[in-house]
């Protein structure tokens, strides 16, 4: 599966558009990360635990989007966009959407 955030696929032609596909996940951080974060708020610096949490959650949301695209018979997702919204103090929703298309090699 080709996943890109541009509106074309380099070296290939889009031959069919299957429609919008999307994936989301809502994640809460755990207490250990929370305690580490409150210490970090004294000294500053990167919150490595949160960064990791966001990366793995975003990957999961993308996996769901890709599964939808596969179900539609697409072989690429183009014009992908990410969105993040915090629901409560401890949880965040990660949302990803794009257009499922069928691409073929350019002649």
């Amino acid at each position: 599966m080709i996943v890109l955030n541009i509106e074309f696929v380099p070296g290939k032609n889009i031959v069919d558009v299957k429609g919008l596909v999307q994936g989301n996940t809502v994640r809460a951080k755990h207490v250990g990360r929370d305690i580490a974060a409150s210490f970090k708020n004294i000294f500053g610096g990167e919150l490595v635990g949160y960064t990791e949490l966001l990366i793995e959650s975003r990957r999961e949301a993308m996996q769901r989007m890709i599964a939808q695209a596969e179900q539609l018979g697409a072989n690429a997702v183009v014009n992908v966009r990410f969105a993040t919204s915090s629901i409560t103090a401890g949880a965040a929703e990660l949302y990803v959407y794009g257009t499922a298309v069928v691409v073929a090699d350019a002649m």
Partner: protein
Amino acid sequence: MGEIIFYFGVPLALLILGLVVGGAIEASHLRRLDRDEQALSQIVVSDLRWLPPNWRASDGVLVIGEAVIATDYFKVFMATLRNFFGGRVRSYETLVARARRQAIVRMLEQAQAVGANVVWSVRIETATIQGKQQGKSGGVEVLAYGTAMTVR
């Protein structure tokens, strides 16, 4: 007497810790960013949607960079003061700039790993992480993403 020391001494100690340790962490982070950006400067980065017509691109890959940077006690204190008097909140400007630069560096490192020489259609999103205290920011989260390609 002991109470006075407790009520004023603890915040003052945290303030000094934030200023000294937080300042040192920020300075070393900025040095690291300068070095990493220099190493990745051969990659062309753009937020354009389309390539120039004479460019032949191949091997598109989505690259994602993410960074969460925490505020320190001193920054929060300075921002609270600024909220009272108004004006530029420099302590938060540097915080957001650091998170954004770090996210872009991580995105470009991924692009370099797949052997790309351009990153196109870059989008950058910023979100705040809520802190322990109500209404105070715990940090900023920046997401940078784009399409890495090889252009000949």
